[in-house]
């Protein structure tokens, strides 16, 4: 199933960052607050594999069972695909824990950093230069 792309048909994926200009879309600073990190635990109800940003939608239940709906956004689909991710790897239907940074306007919206799955595997989709990390 998920291997549809692995059969050699997908020569093209590598082609052309022509997809949306990578993150030329808008400033993250203008929309998200890096000082407001949030951990969301919930069920992925939808993955929107769209330009200019992929969206993951989440139902988060509180202690009393009340559900809050969250949207978490990340890089453009072309960037994810070039990193080996496909839409079916983003956890649709699964219970996950997401580390993200909240929207400044207070909406239930955040910019993704890490998805951790029930089996412990993690997808980190972020920004920066790894060579500048502290050892």
């Amino acid at each position, binding site marked *: 199933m998920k291997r549809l*792309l*692995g059969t050699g*048909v*997908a*020569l*093209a*994926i*590598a*082609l*052309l*960052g*022509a*997809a*949306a*200009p*990578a*993150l*030329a879309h*808008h*400033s*993250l*600073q*203008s*929309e998200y607050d*890096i000082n407001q990190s949030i951990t969301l635990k919930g069920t992925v109800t939808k993955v*929107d*594999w*769209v*330009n*200019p*940003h992929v969206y993951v939608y989440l139902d988060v239940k509180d202690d009393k069972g009340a559900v809050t709906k969250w*949207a978490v*956004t990340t*890089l453009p689909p*072309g*960037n*994810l*695909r*070039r*990193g*080996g*991710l*496909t839409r079916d*790897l983003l956890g649709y239907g699964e219970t996950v824990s997401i580390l993200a940074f909240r*929207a*400044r*306007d207070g909406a239930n919206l955040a910019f993704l950093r890490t998805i951790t*799955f029930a089996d412990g*595997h*993690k997808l980190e*989709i*972020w*920004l*920066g*230069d*790894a*060579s*500048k*990390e*502290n050892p």
Partner: protein
Amino acid sequence: MTKLFIVAGLALAIAAPPAFAQRGRGAGAGGADANAAAAAKPTPRAPDGHPDLTGVWGGAAEPVKALAPGESTRILFPVRTNPEDKRIFDEMDLAAKERQAAEPNKPPYKPELASKVQLLSDKRQFNDPSFYCKPLGVPRMGPPSQVVQTPGLVVLLYQGRNTFRTVPTDNRPHNADADWTWNGDSVGRWDGDTLVIDTTRLVEDSWLGADGWFHSNKMHVVERLTRKGDTLTWTATVDDPGVFTKPWEMTPRTQRLNPNPRALLEEDPPCLEQDGPHIVTDDHH
């Protein structure tokens, strides 16, 4: 559980994104040397004697493998700072502003329009049509991702936004009844070994670049595609007496033929803008 780290650069190494390529960095991996080697190869010709531009231009030879289910990964969008830096969002904006300031080839706007361009640039997050999923249009979308050349007709395909153009090369004039569109009405002719594409009837809704580079409906674009060996060089002259003091030569871009003869373009996912209502400041790239 396997750990697989995809470090900065891989995500973008395969093809320079248009935002960079528009600034003349479109040669991709290998740069000038690889372009020179590709250009030294023989130039194939069509039965009519013209160079055959047919092919997929740019991109990598090998397909990207999808991760296995349960496999961990790390994808870092290249930003020149430590991933833990709390200023990383600011850093992205700063780097983009530096690129903008260093842009050596700005359109020659009439002096009285400078303040308008600046204002549009400052507020680009709200004004750039491409941010809101409108087409890039001619000439902003640059060189084609694939060319299919037949006698009398050249088809140009652009992976971004799944775009096509048909360019007749049978000496017909412009279509006087054509509607005004984002890619306009194009006709082609051969000038020696160069395909010259003349485009008119371009709507004024598009921009020429993200820095507030607007234009009028008087814009007339002449693109030139020249194949040398396994390279394709795209140039564009933009004439817009409505806003420019003289025609503007865009920065040329050279693409290499995709080394995989079986390479295919892939459908670009749809564009669905959902951020605009949540943008609360004027910060921009």
